[in-house]
Every structure is written in C-alpha cells, then in structure tokens.
C-alpha cells in the first residue's frame, strides 16, 4: 500500500493503523477536522517512516466540499492504493430518543457523509481499476438493539451500502473492506464503563492491517466478535424483543 488517504485520521484506530503502514514507508494524505491534531499525527507518521505526509483540515459533514477534497488529495499523491474511512461519532442513544435533531446529526455523520465520500471514491477507483476501500463500520450495525439503535442503524446502513459497492466494484478488481470493531478503548468510548470485551486500538489496528493485506471483505476486530454477533443475530425476534440488550 503505497499511497493512502485517511478520512478521520486523528481517530485512535486510524492513528494506530496508519503507524503500521508508515513503518513500510507509505505516502499519506490525512484528513480531519482539527489542524493542530492533524499536525501531531502527521509528525508522528513522518518520524515512523512515512515517505510523504500531506494534510487537510476539513469538516467532513460538509458534503459539498467532498469533490474538491478528493481532487486536492489526488493532486497531492497522484492516485490511491488505499482509502481508510475512520471518522464517526458515538451518539448518546437516550438523547437521540428525546431529540430528533440529534438522531439526524448522528446519521449525517455516520452514514450520509460516508456515503457521499464513498460515491466519489468508488468512481475514482473504478476508473483506475485498482485500490482498497476500507471503511470502519461497527458490530452495532449487525442488529438493532434498544441500547444503541441509532448508532446501530447508522452503521448498519453503511454496512449494506458497502456490501452493494463491493458487489459492483468486484469486477474492477477493487477490494471493499467492511471493518466491524467491537468495543474499543478510545476517546470515543471514554465515558463508558470498561469490561473484559474492550480491545485496545493497537489490537484493532493489527486486525485491520491484516484484513487489508489479505484482501478480505468483512473483518470483525477482535475476531471473537464474529461469534458474539452470530449469537446475537440468531436469536428469534419474538424472543429478542423481550431482552434488554
């Protein structure tokens, strides 16, 4: 993976994944909202061996800027071998239930923004006939549950979009990787009580790295989440609706 575009480059998982590619001397175009944070991440990757690191600070919720963002990224690095989409928020389910604006905002950030970007990038990749599109979704998208169905819907919708994209882009030789992390100990989850299922961003990054290199379609990180969600998905709805999950 020589040329890498990372959207949401200051997220904990993105930083750890980028380090692994930096050690191989990759070129990066990093996108995130805060310029100072971007600069710190860019500096880290340069020290760790990245050949070239360009950055652009932008709010990815501004869909109208996506096309020009991708133009300047392409101009900076030529073409891309890997696009990693790691931006997202974890909405407060209870607050979303009380305030529809919060629900819409969560869907905007976690589904609509990514779909806009993916549409542009898919066309770009289709014309260059190669590339890997790795997108962070979530195990929460595998089944709607009362404790986080807004986030679950946002990520689940994204997962289905990716599934369709994978089907479309397969014959162009493009890898579409849906990344489904479980609980990860990051700033996004700092307010949650931690249990034994929490993984470190480093662990998750290793899983993502391997899945990209091996050309996988869907990866659960850590891998035991595949079995947990299998159990969760196999419970009949008549029983499931009575559970407090």
């Amino acid at each position, binding site marked *: 993976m020589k040329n890498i575009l990372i959207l949401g480059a200051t997220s904990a998982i993105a930083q750890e994944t980028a380090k692994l590619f930096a050690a191989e001397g990759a070129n990066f175009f990093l996108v995130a909202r*805060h310029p*100072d944070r971007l600069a710190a991440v860019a*500096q*880290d990757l340069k*020290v760790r061996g990245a050949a070239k690191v360009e950055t652009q600070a932008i709010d990815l919720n501004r869909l109208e800027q996506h096309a020009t963002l991708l133009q300047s990224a392409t101009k900076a690095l030529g073409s891309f071998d890997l696009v990693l989409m790691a931006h997202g928020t974890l909405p407060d389910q209870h607050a979303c239930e009380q305030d529809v604006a919060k629900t819409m905002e969560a869907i905007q950030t976690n589904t609509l923004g990514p779909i806009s970007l993916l549409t542009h990038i898919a066309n770009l990749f289709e014309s260059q006939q190669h590339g890997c599109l790795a997108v962070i979704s979530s195990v929460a998208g595998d089944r709607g549950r009362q404790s986080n169905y807004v986030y679950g819907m946002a990520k689940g919708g994204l997962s289905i979009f990716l599934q369709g994209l994978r089907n479309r882009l397969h014959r162009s030789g493009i890898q579409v990787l849906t990344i489904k992390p479980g609980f990860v100990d990051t*700033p996004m989850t700092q307010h949650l009580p*931690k*249990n*034994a299922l929490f993984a470190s961003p480093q662990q998750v990054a290793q899983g993502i790295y391997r899945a990209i290199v091996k050309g996988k379609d869907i990866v659960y990180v850590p891998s035991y989440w595949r079995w947990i969600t299998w159990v969760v998905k196999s419970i009949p709805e008549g029983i499931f609706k009575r559970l407090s999950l």
Partner: protein
Amino acid sequence: MKKNLSWGRYPQVQPRATLPILWQSDLPHLTGYPTSVLPRGFGRSYGDSCLNEDGMLLDTTPLMRLIHFDAQQGIIRCEAGVSFADLLQFIVPRGWFLPVTPGTKFISVAGAIANDIHGKNHHKAGTFGAHVIQFELLRSNGEQLICSATQNTELYRATIGGLGLTGLILWAEFKLKPIHNACIAMERIRFANLEEFFALANQSDRDYEYTVAWVDCLSAGPQQGRGIFFRGNHAHEGFSKSSNHSFRVPCDLPDFLLNRFTMKIMNGLIYSSAPPDEQKIVHYDPFFYPLDAIHDWNRCYGKRGFLQYQCVIPYGQHEETTQKILSRVARSGTASFLSVLKLFGDQPSPGLLSFPKPGVTLAMDFAFRGTKTLQLLEDLDSMVCEMGGLVYPAKDARMSAEHFQNFFPQWREFARFIDPKFSSSFWRRVTQDSTRSSS
C-alpha cells in the same frame, strides 16, 4: 475489572475521576477541577505513588506520538505516554536501544522520568533521568516550561524522580544507546550463597553492561542467599528472534496458591533447574522482560494484591545487612519468589528525590496478608534506616512518614517544587500533616 489500581493492587482505592490527556494542542485548565490531580501512565508503579484517592488522575497514555528522531545522534523526542514497548519496536531495527530500562517495557516515558527508573546497567549508565536532555512541563497555572540541565534547572531536577508531583510532562527528549542488533550475549551462573553473589557481582560489573541476580530468599542456613546471576552485553553478532508466545493470567488466583510451601518448592525448582553456568545469545525480550510474557502476572497474588519491597543498602556493611534482611524474611513465614539483588554504581542522577545510590539493592514481592506483611516490612524499614539505606517510593504502599522523611531528608526542599494542584495518595501518606496539598 478494577481499573486504576496500581500494579501491586494494594491499596484498593479509587480516584474520583480520570481525565484523558488526548492532545498537546488541547490541554485542560487544571485549576478548574475541584480536586487535586496526578498524572498516570500505565499504572506499573507497585504502590500508591500512581494513585490519587478521591482526586483526579490525568491519563497520559493517549499522548503516544513520536515527535522527532535524530538517527545520527540517537536522540528521540516523543510524547509523555509513549511506551517503552512502542519505542523498542521503532528504535531497535534502527540500531538503537533504551539507555536504561526496568524489568517491564509496559511503562511510559514520563513514568520513567517521574520514577527515575533504573535497570540492570545502573553500575554503568546510572538512572534513566541521567539520559534525559529536556522535557516540557505543564503547571496548573497554565505555564508550559521547557526543563533541562540549563533551563528551569531546579524543576528539571525536581521532576526527575519527582513522582509526578511537579506538573504534567507533555513530551521528553532523551539519548539512546547504539547497538549492533537485537541480541544480548548473556551468561547465567548459579551461586551458592551471598558471599559468592558479591564476588560474582564485583567481578562482573567491570566487563558486563548488564548484571542482576535472582535470589532464593526462602532458603536458610548454609544455602542462604543462593541464586542465579545473570550478566550480559549487547551482542556484536548473532541472531535470535523474539518469541511471540505470551499468556494472560485470566483471573485472580486464589490466595492459598502462593504459600510458603509452594514458594519454597518453586524457588528450589528455579534454582536447581538452572545449569551451573550457561552462555547464550538471546533476544532482548526474554533477557530484559521475562515477566512481560505473562500478562497480568500480578493477579497470581490473588485479589488482595501484593507488596513489593525494594531497598538500597550503602556500601560498607552491606553484606552483613543483606544477610540480616534475608534471614528476617526467611524467618517471617511470609513468602516471596521474585527476589532480585543488584549492585548500584556511583553515577549521579540529576533527580532531587531519586532513589538509587551506591550500594546493594534488594527487591522482593510479598503477597499481601494483612498486618503480618506490614509488620515485616516495617521491621525491614528500620533495619534499612539504621544502615543509612533507603526504600524505593515507586514500589512502596506502606512505609511510615517517619521512615520516608529519614530516607529522603531532602523531601522538604523537593516539596517547594510540587505544583499546588498536584498530589498523590503516596505523597499525602508520607508527608501526612507536614504539608497540606490542595484537595
């Protein structure tokens, strides 16, 4: 899972809150918080120096970015929470090694400074603090100060070994050591008693960069002080890969598992299974960090946790004193199987409250068994105090204020540099009402 305990998991106290420090560009205004604050990295200090009961912890582990690396001079600058494990992965393939490392690589750079850690090369290289060129310190009044041997010198000296009390270290720059490859040419030699240990240590410290001994502290009589001596140098050639085998202790093991009887058997096994003398080339991992292969090994001591005791006895009557301490431990009926002996050298540390000084250092683990354990360690404190030695704060959870102030008479001078907003359970305990920190 109980978070925020120290490595010894005693005392089991909790902070009121934990604040992660995520970005250097987005620092908190510390005066705005109602309680005292204390920086904390990976929580590998054994006792209560990384605890702040009812106060706030500043979690530095998100500050994990490298800032600059000078490949010619071997100088690295990185954020406070970068771990030694991460650094090793980066520097070793580039031909550099940590100037000083303790027995675990799961510690942060800022923690290494705050505890002025030492390692198997203390007799050659001194403490970690001696290799620190500069760092940036955030004080609660919002000041950000660059501290070095020439700039803010007093704060530089107070922060090295300053137990996190002088402010929040944001980043640090320090000097690495050149190596040829990832391997250590090491030798293991069995010794039958303390006398043999001192002879081996004195003879080895000249030609070997790294020396340390495991000692069977349960054997008595003529076998007292028997053990295994490890010495090594960075290899010039040779190749050995780190094995990726690691294991996690899944839960707290029951208390009765580690008793005097099982410990005695284990110690005997460790001693007799070692060949009398063996030389080999090994990867740095098993040489420096054998216990890191067993994640959460502290859970072996059961849910009541354990106490680590490390003291240094100055040269002079060090041989007799070590003997006396070992006898006292052997008699106590309290058990320890991770006991380590090493001779410290005379390289000075810039640290004001730094622990190492010329002499022999002895470190031992004790499963926590209530007052019996506390009484034993209190007795050891008195013996150490009498000989002009001292006890390592980073590993302590129970020494009396009186003993601490005897061990570190410079503590009042040090206290002048403590940030008024910073405090720790340790510091409140060992200074008690002598100084009142804001909390």
